[in-house]
């Protein structure tokens, strides 16, 4: 039993992050950090994770040159890091699988997870099926409706999907409910948080499990083009695919960009653009940029993409943004839809609505002088077909 954290719990000059958890969860979080630290240097754990990432997840994922899209938006070269080609169709599986292995190592028999777009829920359900762990996923009722195929997939993998009807019925409420459930079952259950969010050690642990994206991509782009791009870009919900891609490029002289959901307007409640619209506050166990009203109550959010529809930016990404190491931009619902359509038409790849927010920024990047871009394609768009059909009129 450990009684204090060993890893840094704060990020950046504003000391974001931390561990603002109810007392019931403090010892489970201390134990989780200890287990994570040991596992991350244990050859047996690392070997098993590596093997599972290769044979189950399908890593390394390809880096696909996208010359027709590049030409269309005015770039010299564009490379897509294909997390959409992982098993279950998004980067979420990198973290879900690693945490499930860690949970098993800790002797936990039950897994709890939240999900927004359903990709983290599906990834967790798949990892649990593979490792023989029981799995309960909390999901807002609004998200269950707009990401219905993922609900069915989770159920096929044997997971129990618990609808969360409170509030807007989106990711924030799902996290609330998952944290409550964990407080009730933390003696036997592990909570697999799906983004670089929440109380320490989750932000650090999730980012660590996701940096495989950027490590692979950096080597691949060097191999394919003989140099580094001038810009690396990813979408940002909580920030797990963003950090996973961008962190391995932090030491390089290039522009790192994260794209938030601009939703359908600029007033509070119409978007999930935390950098511009947020203030530092505490939600779900961490201090970070938060969309909130003047009373410190969490604001409503809006986005066409369930995975970006969340009021807080992960603390490490928020810190990198505030300290000038990552540029944070926003793309509206309509811009994301247009970005998705363009990728479909030029390259024959159907992106998730989340990833489409990064695609939406390509023309603006080219106009700003970017020539070579590496873009994190965090997930595939099968789950979003009904939205694409209704919004694009196809």
């Amino acid at each position, binding site marked *: *039993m450990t*009684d204090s954290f060993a890893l840094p719990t704060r990020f950046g000059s504003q000391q974001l992050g*931390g*561990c*603002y*958890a*109810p*007392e*019931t*969860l*403090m*010892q*489970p979080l201390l134990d989780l950090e200890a287990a994570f630290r040991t596992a991350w240097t244990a050859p047996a754990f690392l070997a098993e994770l590596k093997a599972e990432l290769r044979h189950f997840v399908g890593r390394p994922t390809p880096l696909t040159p996208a010359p027709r899209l590049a030409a269309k938006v005015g770039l010299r070269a564009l490379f897509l890091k294909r997390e959409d080609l992982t098993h279950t169709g998004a980067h979420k599986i990198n973290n879900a699988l690693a945490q499930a292995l860690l949970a098993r190592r800790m002797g936990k028999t039950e897994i709890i997870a939240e999900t927004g777009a359903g990709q983290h829920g599906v990834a967790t359900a798949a990892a649990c099926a593979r490792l023989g762990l029981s799995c309960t996923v909390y999901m807002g009722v609004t998200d269950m409706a707009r990401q219905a195929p993922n609900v069915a997939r989770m159920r096929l993998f044997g997971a129990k999907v618990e609808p969360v009807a*409170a*509030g807007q019925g989106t990711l*924030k409420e799902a996290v*609330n409910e998952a*944290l*409550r459930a964990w*407080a*009730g*079952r*933390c*003696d036997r259950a592990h909570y697999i948080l799906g983004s670089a969010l929440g109380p320490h050690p989750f932000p650090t642990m999730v980012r660590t499990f996701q940096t495989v994206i950027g490590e692979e991509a950096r080597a691949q782009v060097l191999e394919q083009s003989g140099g580094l791009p001038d810009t690396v870009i990813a979408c940002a919900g909580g920030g797990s695919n963003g950090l996973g891609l961008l962190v391995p490029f932090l030491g390089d002289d290039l522009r790192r960009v994260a794209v938030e959901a601009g939703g359908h307007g600029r007033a509070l409640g119409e978007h999930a653009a935390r950098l511009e619209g947020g*203030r530092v*506050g*505490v*939600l*779900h*166990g961490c201090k970070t940029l*938060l969309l*909130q009203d*003047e*009373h*410190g*109550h*969490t604001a409503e959010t809006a986005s066409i993409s369930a995975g970006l529809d969340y009021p807080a930016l992960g603390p490490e990404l928020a810190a990198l943004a505030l300290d000038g190491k990552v540029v944070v931009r926003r793309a509206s619902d309509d811009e994301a839809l247009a970005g998705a359509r363009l990728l479909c038409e030029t390259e024959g790849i159907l992106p998730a609505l989340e990833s489409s927010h990064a695609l939406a920024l390509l023309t603006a990047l080219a106009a700003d002088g970017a020539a070579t871009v590496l873009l994190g394609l965090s997930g595939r768009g099968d789950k979003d077909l009904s939205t694409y059909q209704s919004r694009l009129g196809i």
Partner: protein
Amino acid sequence: MNPLLPFIMAGDPSLEALPRLLAEAKALGLEAIELGLPHSDPIADGPVLQAAAHRAIARGATPVRILEVLAGITDSPDLILFTYLNPLLQIGAERLKTLLAPTPVKALLVVDLPFGEEPAFERDLRAAGYPMVPLLAPTTTLERARQVLAERPDPGPSAPFAQRFAYLVARLGVTGTGQSTDLAPVQKRMSELGILATRPLAVGFGLSDAASLAAVRAMGATPVIGSALVRELAGGRSLSACLAPLL
């Protein structure tokens, strides 16, 4: 020993009713009461307190308005403000101290603020007379429990109960009634810590019936009644009608 520590949600059933509720509590002889500050995302609360918080927010019970309603009230038990951190952080320590000064608030119970996360904020408020209540959960190890109690020390017998007591969470999970709470681990924890020899203790989470309250009192601690009371008050019963039989 203080026989009962009730919890009520500010703004539910209404903010206008709050002064009367507090006067009624005082008339019942209650020494202290926990007053919930409604929050949009109460991650440590079960369905009853979640619903109460949302009703209160919908009726305009914002943190500042609540503190303004409390200003000048003297006909009240000592208040322990039960809250989440973010609303307090947004108000800021300086303004918060000014807002608290004319109220009967004597201590803060901030559910998502472990010791050490906001040391300057906590020190500042304690120095101004608003100490944080130490919380111990079933998962808290003995070693950590001693640390929590040391970090949030007892100011001593001359201070009121509200500023002295530690809060022992009786079971895993969130606030609310439901499954019956097994008090044996609570008893064990109390004797391991030998805590009652040094400071008063409140035990809460899941208590609702007279029998479980009596069992907590028999151990020498003060039972907390929250969700069960909030549900009754929302249903229109008076505080006296709810609490008199339990005292």
